[in-house]
């Protein structure tokens, strides 16, 4: 990403330097051409003031002054025969300036093609020509070699300077962007830790630029989020705690009342009291489960993590529930291949797997079947617990993971409806994923735990 920006920057920089060089070169040398055109034009004027008869002599005199051969002259008859001067022929294809011409008469540049006396090789020249009153043709040329040399020198200087400039610019840009890249990398690392649940972390600040403004804003936001989360968690835990104490008091009092009632023998009242105690127990169970979920959620990540052998763990869970399945003639089959160890909290995983298996056995019909499959996939290990019970309709699959949800078809069964929320809290803590599907054979539920990190999904 950053390197894409860097190359875009370098290309833009290079193009602007080249345009600058081009512009300077063009304007400097263009100016010089205009200057020589002016000179030639003035020379034309001075020749104009000389009579046709005296012109050849004037040209010869003029030529004697031009020892350095910066100027060339030629006077030709209308048919092109040379009368005077060191230009041997009228160069082909040039336009003649009208007599007296405009002030800005323009010359032509001839590239080594002007035939000149005594010179082996014709230089690059600027040429201007006019028709005189008697029909003869006057051609004046100026050597451009000096200008070309200056142009070349200027261009070389500009290109050399430009390359240095470009290198310095790119190097500075690279240094500056490396600094930014490092900061962004720091921010990225801290953000990941925050996403993992460590809300104490704050983004690094101290650049006094736009990025810093942004990180300070995000940090402020994190402060708020942390405060709110603590408040919500505090409120939830507080409610569960505060309600639990009076509830257990009610339970105790009901027990005391029941003790007294046994002395009198009002059967229906005793039954009602038993029912009331049972309901209180259910309430207390739910509060306990709720607090447990909140506890799992607030556990410091990775705190109790160590290497866990999933196949032995699954075998242990299966052994724990096997008698329960047998009691209801449910066939419990376990297929646990050799899988690599994972990093996790063994006790919590045991609790989660137990809950899954408990559910499967609970929802499977008598003489039904529950299967546990632990297998190694490309991404990692996968655990599937499937039963041939009523199954969970598609629209309820999200909802069953929420607290207290119980499907329509299983309302008659005992339980707090919190089992799967415990599972999902444990799964979240491990960054694993839980998928609910149907058993391949048409009916029933299959619960799949994907035991690899889904943190970046």
């Amino acid at each position: 990403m950053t390197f894409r920006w860097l190359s875009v920057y370098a290309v833009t920089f290079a193009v602007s330097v080249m345009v600058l060089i081009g512009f300077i070169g063009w304007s400097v040398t263009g100016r010089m051409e205009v200057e020589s055109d002016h000179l030639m034009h003035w020379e034309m004027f001075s020749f104009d003031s000389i009579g046709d008869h005296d012109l050849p002599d004037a040209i010869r005199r003029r030529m004697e002054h031009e020892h350095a051969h910066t100027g060339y002259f030629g006077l030709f008859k209308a048919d092109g025969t040379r009368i005077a001067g060191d230009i041997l022929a009228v160069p082909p294809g040039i336009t003649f300036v009208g007599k007296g011409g405009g002030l800005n008469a323009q010359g032509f540049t001839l590239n080594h093609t002007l035939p000149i006396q005594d010179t082996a090789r014709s230089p690059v020249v600027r040429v201007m020509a006019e028709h005189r009153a008697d029909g003869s043709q006057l051609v004046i040329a100026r050597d451009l070699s000096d200008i070309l040399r200056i142009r070349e020198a200027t261009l070389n200087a500009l290109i050399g300077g430009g390359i240095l400039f470009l290198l310095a610019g790119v190097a500075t840009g690279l240094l500056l962007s490396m600094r930014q890249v490092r900061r962004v990398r720091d921010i990225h690392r801290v953000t990941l830790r925050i996403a993992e649940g460590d809300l104490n972390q704050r983004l690094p600040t101290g650049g006094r630029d736009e990025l810093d403004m942004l990180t300070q804003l995000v940090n402020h936001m994190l402060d708020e989020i942390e405060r709110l989360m603590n408040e919500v968690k505090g409120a939830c835990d507080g409610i569960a705690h505060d309600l639990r104490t009076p509830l257990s008091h009610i339970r105790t009092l009901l027990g005391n009342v029941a003790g007294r009632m046994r002395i009198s023998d009002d059967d229906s009242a005793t039954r009602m009291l038993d029912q009331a105690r049972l309901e209180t127990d259910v309430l207390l169970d739910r509060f306990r489960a709720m607090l447990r979920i909140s506890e799992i959620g607030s556990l410091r990540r990775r705190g109790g993590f160590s290497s866990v052998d999933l196949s032995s763990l699954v075998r242990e869970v299966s052994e724990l529930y096997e008698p329960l399945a047998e009691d209801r003639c449910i066939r419990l089959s376990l297929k646990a291949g050799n899988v690599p160890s994972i990093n996790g909290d063994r006790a919590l995983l045991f609790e989660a797997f137990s809950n899954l298996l408990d559910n499967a056995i609970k929802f499977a019909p008598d003489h039904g079947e529950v299967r546990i499959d632990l297998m190694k996939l490309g991404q990692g290990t996968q655990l599937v617990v499937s039963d041939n019970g009523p199954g969970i309709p598609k629209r309820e699959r999200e909802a069953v993971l929420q607290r207290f949800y119980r499907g329509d078809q299983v309302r008659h069964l005992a339980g707090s409806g919190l089992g799967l929320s415990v599972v999902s809290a444990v799964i979240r803590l491990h960054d694993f994923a839980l998928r609910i599907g149907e058993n391949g054979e048409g009916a029933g539920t299959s619960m799949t735990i994907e035991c690899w990190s889904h943190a970046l999904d």
Partner: protein
Amino acid sequence: MTTRVLTIEDDPLTANEIVSELEKSGFDVHWVANGNDGLAQAVSGGYDLIMLDWMLPGLDGLTILTTLRTVGVQTPVLMLSALGDVDERIRGLRAGGDDYLTKPFDPAELVARLEVLLRRCREVPASNVTTLQAGPLEVDLISRKVTRDGLEVDLLPTEYRILEFMMRHCGQVITRTMLFEEVWGYHFDPGTNLIDVHMGRLRKKIDLPGMSPVIQTVRGSGYILL
């Protein structure tokens, strides 16, 4: 000689429940409602057992426990807490607590745990014991051989662990939670009648038809091996 129990608990209703329940079971209970008095009593009192609430006005339970152990008081301590967190439990046990119970608790569970704690502390653990015996049952701890009236009983590993635990606490009420914690080593509520089913299997193997049951169910509490 009656057993003297100190309970440090700030909630009067819970304390009342503990006191009445324990007195019913024949303990001599003394109640203290705050941490400072609790610590003073615990250090000077000569109690057989201390029940300690985690959250108290004044000194909190963990501080009291650490202080007690630092000054060399070795009285067994049962921690009581509204927090069921595994971390809290571990911290409590590390600080020198002997057992940990989450509130609200079943009074029967409390009494069962106290009995086990008391027994554990009174008996000098004999390391050279290789067999356990209870009535017609005998367990060889080394070969893991179980016999009833001299006849060998074939048990699965889980069944053996349940039986061994029951034999070690012969004559004491063992609750389902205690069994789950001891035999499986996990601290959550497995729910349903999971433990009952395991116990049923074990019983089927050790009580053949016509024999009197060795392990009995205590209604509302758990099991007892007589």
